[in-house]
């Protein structure tokens, strides 16, 4: 295994452990917003799509890139906005 892969695996494993720990006793009320918020975070895939853009050079690559960019941007933009809208409903009234 290359040192780079080892470093990546370490980071991945620790990220998994943090993910397990960071979600604790969540009230059921927040299950849906929390799922939606986590959904928005994997919109980070857009950054991966941007890195992909640096390597594609032909027309089939461009088409694939455009679709991937569409998907990734939709995930990240829509994900955060819809979570925000959900959470806006929780403010206490009266």
């Amino acid at each position, binding site marked *: 295994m290359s040192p780079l892969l080892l470093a990546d695996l370490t980071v991945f494993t620790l990220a998994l452990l943090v993910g397990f720990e960071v979600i604790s006793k969540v009230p059921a009320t927040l299950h849906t917003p*929390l799922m939606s918020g*986590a959904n928005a975070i994997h919109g980070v895939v857009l950054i*991966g799509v941007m890195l992909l853009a640096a390597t*594609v050079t032909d027309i089939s690559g461009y088409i694939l890139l455009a679709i*991937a*960019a569409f998907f990734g941007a939709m995930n990240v933009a829509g994900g955060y906005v819809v979570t925000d809208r959900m959470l806006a409903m929780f403010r206490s009234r009266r």
Partner: protein
Amino acid sequence: MNTTIHLVYLACAVSFVIGLHLMNAPATAKKGNRISAAGMAVAIAITAVVLVRDHTMTTGAVVALVIGACAGGLAGLIAARRVQMTAMPQLVSLFNAVGGGAAALIALGEPAASNQAAVTGVLDVAIGGVTFTGSLVAAGKLAGRIPGRPIAVPFGRPIMAALTLVAAALGVWFVAGDFNQWLLAGVTVAALAAGVLLTLPIGGADMPVVISLLNAFTGTAVAMAGFVLESTPLIIAGGLVGAAGAILTKLMADAMNRPITAIMAGGFGTGDAVAVAGGSGAASVREITADDAAIQLAYAGKVVIVPGYGLAAAQAQHEAVALAEALTERGVEVTYAIHPVAGRMPGHMNVLLAEANAPYPQLKDLEESNPEFARTDVALIIGANDVTNPAARRPGNPVSGMPILDVDKARSVIVLKRSLGHGYAGIDNELYADPRTAMLFADAKAGLAALLAGLHAYAG
């Protein structure tokens, strides 16, 4: 400069963790989501800066990236802003689908440069492919475009096994051979088919858990894409969501008292209960007219409203709140008893009622509500079924052990429901045969409007 970039990425990863953590509590949840969003914006901006600085993109790639990202971002924003709160679960599922799709496309577009990239690339397209079609089917089921009942695919299991074998064989060939991208495309096709086969047999009621599980899958696929690209932010955020999503899935499944293995096996949870008026337990139920029910509500001291899936499906939250307000004005004490899995997703009912401006202090969860029923005059159940079935207190039936709302402790019960059709568990609700229970057969929206009209006409 590269050190700076890595430190910025690290700060963004920290903001995701802090953001998710703050979302554990209602008071800080909104702030948490915004912190996470800010981190994401910074991460995207710094990546754009790096791309521009390095001049590695061809003009074609810049055009494709900008057009794709702008169109996708706009589509996501518009959908997120316009969506009805009742349609929100399927939108989240759609966003999850495109996230998985993007992750899979990354591995397809980036020729594998090393064994590491090849192995993780196979995992990426396999997991990403399954979540893409799986989430689309889940969204279709929630939106009613695909029937919510479990759909048995002929020879589903052998086909699934064959697809898994084919994908594994192609994947091994890809890694062991010369990284031919067509083999990777073959794995993707098998994964796309598997995603459909996996989700079709699962009933609509179990969709929330399935979406949460697919959300965890997408996180993992994104982490794999991170390995392919050797990009730390993808690995961190993907791993974080993969693990957090898995825990959340377990929490949701626990709240519904449904083991995840049973959900994935499919077959339970129809999502659209068959309307069989006067079903098996017809002999002993008592019907009531909307006007009689309205009078009973008007002269009660304390009313507890129990909203369920039927209310969410009929989008009757505004009518329910209007009725509650009218009763409150008459001096009736009104609260809502919200079961953890009421509605279409855990927590969904709170969102719907809050949207309709139900005062937050009136929304009570299971633990707060149950002691209240003993001093409740009327429990008004709107489109909820299994979560009120006293049979859950006895062993030996499909709802055994499920936490229920103790509505049968109330002095009287009015059930507003379309029919005596079964809930997801597929069994009779003993509550309906109770002599203190009266059935008001109507669609939730129409029934609540009739109750409100009755209230104004007879008790004004």
